[in-house]
């Protein structure tokens, strides 16, 4: 779960290794695009499967016209508000789960179940309860991210070394000092891993909820493209969505590595 563990394990011929890896990467992408172009022109036709060039042109147009900025801003604001909502409820729940056996048993089925309930359930329920406004996606995101945040906080709380806490108490550190310098540093990595995962899931559920009922956002645009039978636009919006998601994911990973630099000694040990 925690990255940076694999990097120290390649002492042998790292240069040739890197070279082969990037060669594979390039060939993989070129091959994929070539296969896509070949399928769209020779096997099928440009309408059934628009080629990479056509989809790229549509993506460029979406970005240039400013629709990308508008709809992504709408989707992101819903995701963040919902995520904040989910985290502010999920964190205390997770803390209770980590500290008490009763609450762990109480929330067990809910937390386990949340990962297996089809995403469509959240989307359509949000639509029925809140209609097609702003609130539906926000609540759906809150509901989906809550159990994941709770689970990662619970894992972190359980992972706190009781001996460290005992030692801190023996040296008469105050409660606030213990929670600030002992508890928090060992909980944070788990929380961060949970946040990254929950965010990836929340972002997809947000788009799905917009597909089912909304008047703006990425999901709405994908739905609109579907209803106007434009395969090109469905692909263009989807690729923009994925690029955006992977950029956020990578960004969070970089932040995570920077924050937890001090922890590396623990990984190698």
């Amino acid at each position, binding site marked *: *779960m925690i990255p940076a563990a694999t990097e120290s394990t390649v002492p042998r011929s790292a240069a040739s290794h890197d070279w*082969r*890896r990037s*060669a*594979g*990467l390039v*060939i*993989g*992408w070129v*091959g*994929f695009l070539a296969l896509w172009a070949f399928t769209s022109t020779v096997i099928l036709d440009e309408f*059934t499967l628009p080629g990479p060039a056509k989809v790229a042109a549509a993506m460029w147009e979406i970005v240039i016209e400013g629709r990308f900025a508008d709809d992504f801003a709408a989707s992101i604001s819903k995701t963040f508000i919902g995520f904040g909502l989910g985290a502010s409820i999920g964190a205390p729940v997770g803390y209770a789960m980590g500290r008490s*056996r*009763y*609450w*762990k*048993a*109480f*929330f*067990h089925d*809910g937390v*386990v*179940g*949340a*990962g*297996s*309930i*089809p*995403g*469509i*359930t959240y989307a*359509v*329920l949000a639509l*029925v*309860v809140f209609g097609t406004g702003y609130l539906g996606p926000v609540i759906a995101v809150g509901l989906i991210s809550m159990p*994941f945040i709770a*689970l*990662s906080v*619970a*894992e972190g709380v359980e992972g706190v070394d009781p001996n460290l806490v005992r030692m801190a108490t023996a040296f008469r550190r105050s409660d606030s000092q213990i929670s600030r310098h002992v508890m928090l540093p060992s909980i944070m990595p*788990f929380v961060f*891993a949970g946040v990254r*995962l929950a965010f*990836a*899931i929340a972002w*997809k*559920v947000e*788009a*799905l909820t917009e*597909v089912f009922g909304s008047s703006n956002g990425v999901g709405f645009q*994908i739905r609109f493209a*579907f209803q106007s039978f434009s*395969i090109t636009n*469905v*692909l263009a919006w*989807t690729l923009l*969505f*994925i690029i955006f*998601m*992977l950029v956020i994911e990578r960004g969070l990973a970089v932040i995570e590595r920077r924050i937890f630099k001090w922890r590396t000694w623990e990984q190698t040990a």
Partner: protein
Amino acid sequence: MTASTAAAPTQTSPRRGKIRRALTADWAARITFYVAVLVGWQLLAWQVARMPAPWETLDFLFRELTGGSQGGVVTGVFWDHFLVTVQRFSIGLVVGFVIGVILGIGIGTFRFVKSLLNDIMLVFLALPAVIWAFLTVMWFGLGWEAPVYTVILASFPFVAVNVAQGVRAVSPELHDMSDAFRIPRQRRLRHLMLPAISGYLFTGLRFAVIIGWNAVLLAEWFGSTNGVGWRARFWYDAARYRGFLGWVIVFIIFIFLLDGFVMRPLQRRAFRWRRDRDGGGDGDGTELTIDNVVVMGV
């Protein structure tokens, strides 16, 4: 459920300690959770006009199972739609699983294949199932093809990634040792490769099941004329929210039963050899950690 919570304190002796212990036992906590969910649902139904109450939904489901009429629509067609969906789901799952296993073995065995497919797999993992549903509906129209292909396309990357991880988890030291002791290929496959891979294989299958179920529902919702997803949409379009919610509960119950009583035990069984290494239930691949619980194929 409510009855058993009420009965719990009276069965035990009136001593407060025992009552307290019974009420805070793990099973009691779980039952309390379900009661709390039901109460929450009822409260929501009182607040939101469009939200049907629990008993209304159950009443509808009963009629959908046994027959009768609901707002002029003939009901009692539960098994027709359910079996159609399960059939599509199973076909898609089997094909997706096979594709995923082949790709996963390739990625896990050959470094070059891994670097070739790594990024593309990442994109496939990030693709929401609804996109596949849209594309397949536009390609194949309304029918059995869209749901089946959506299940295949949505589930195979998750199988491939897990199987690749399993192949890489086979210890190279044990391989070298088998070479040194001239262990025949067959025994090596049976005692070295299979135990190492099977756990990841079942994890991949479990992911595929959960993701495939969501995918089949989405594809049926947007492009089908029968099946569970279509029936839910039918009631939704008719603004009969109790019918719609009844089917949503079928979505959930089906996957809960399949995951809880089939997939998780299988996964645990496949990982059971790990137990004695890590000690006391840890590392058997099913404990309550975010890695094991989070699946969520959206």
